[in-house]
């Protein structure tokens, strides 16, 4: 049965003539991830019983060396395409209500979030499984690369 949520999601999923029950939001951006802003934008239906969200943080060390930041590079059009393929597969595997994902690119300082993922589902099992799977597959398939910025090197503010 189509409801208002499904119709809204259908217009956002990027697929034509296909019913998309899972609402998806994707941002690959240079700006910071504001958790409070993201939480305020959360929409859940009366069917939702689980919300999982994951925050990936830049560690202060990389391969045993102290770093100031990580500079992320992406092939953005392909990254968006690959994320959408993963969302399609996620929707086939689990009854997910919505997924929102933000990945930063450019320079991200240590202790700042580089990744924010939220999965809303009817039950915790599928929410945990889908979130874990999505992050694992992202690390395997989405063209994003990182370069550590050593402690001795000041991050380039133009890249932030």
């Amino acid at each position, binding site marked *: 049965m189509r409801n208002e949520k499904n119709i809204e999601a259908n217009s956002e999923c990027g697929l034509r003539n296909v019913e998309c029950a899972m609402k998806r939001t994707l941002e690959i951006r240079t700006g910071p991830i504001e958790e409070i802003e993201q939480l305020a934008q959360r929409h859940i239906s009366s069917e939702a019983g689980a919300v999982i969200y994951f925050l990936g943080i830049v560690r202060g060390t990389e391969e045993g060396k102290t770093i100031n930041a990580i500079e992320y590079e992406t*092939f953005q*059009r392909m990254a968006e395409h690959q994320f959408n393929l993963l969302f399609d597969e996620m929707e086939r595997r689990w009854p997910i209500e919505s997924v929102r994902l933000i*990945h930063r690119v450019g320079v991200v300082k240590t202790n700042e979030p580089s990744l924010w993922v939220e999965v809303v589902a009817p039950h915790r099992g599928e929410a945990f499984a889908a979130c874990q799977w999505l992050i694992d597959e*992202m*690390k*395997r398939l989405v*063209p*994003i*690369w990182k370069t550590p910025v050593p402690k001795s090197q000041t991050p380039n503010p133009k890249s932030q």
Partner: protein
Amino acid sequence: MQVTVNFYSYLKDLTACAQATEPLPDGSTLDELFKKLSVRFPRLEAIQKSILMAVGLDYQKGNYLLKPGDEVSLFPPVQGG
């Protein structure tokens, strides 16, 4: 035919460029393109096994038949998150 090749991450350092064009005989595969690129950019050969290849926005294997105007991307293993 001619194809455009984009390099990402440290492949840009290994080739000293972000993009190259390569003339190829019709019916060439991605593997054949890589062989030509390895001659032009010898530092690619040592890391061939770890290099990922895409045409347009999708991953492709070495036996992929290239078409005129194809945009090929070569890059190292991805590291998002």
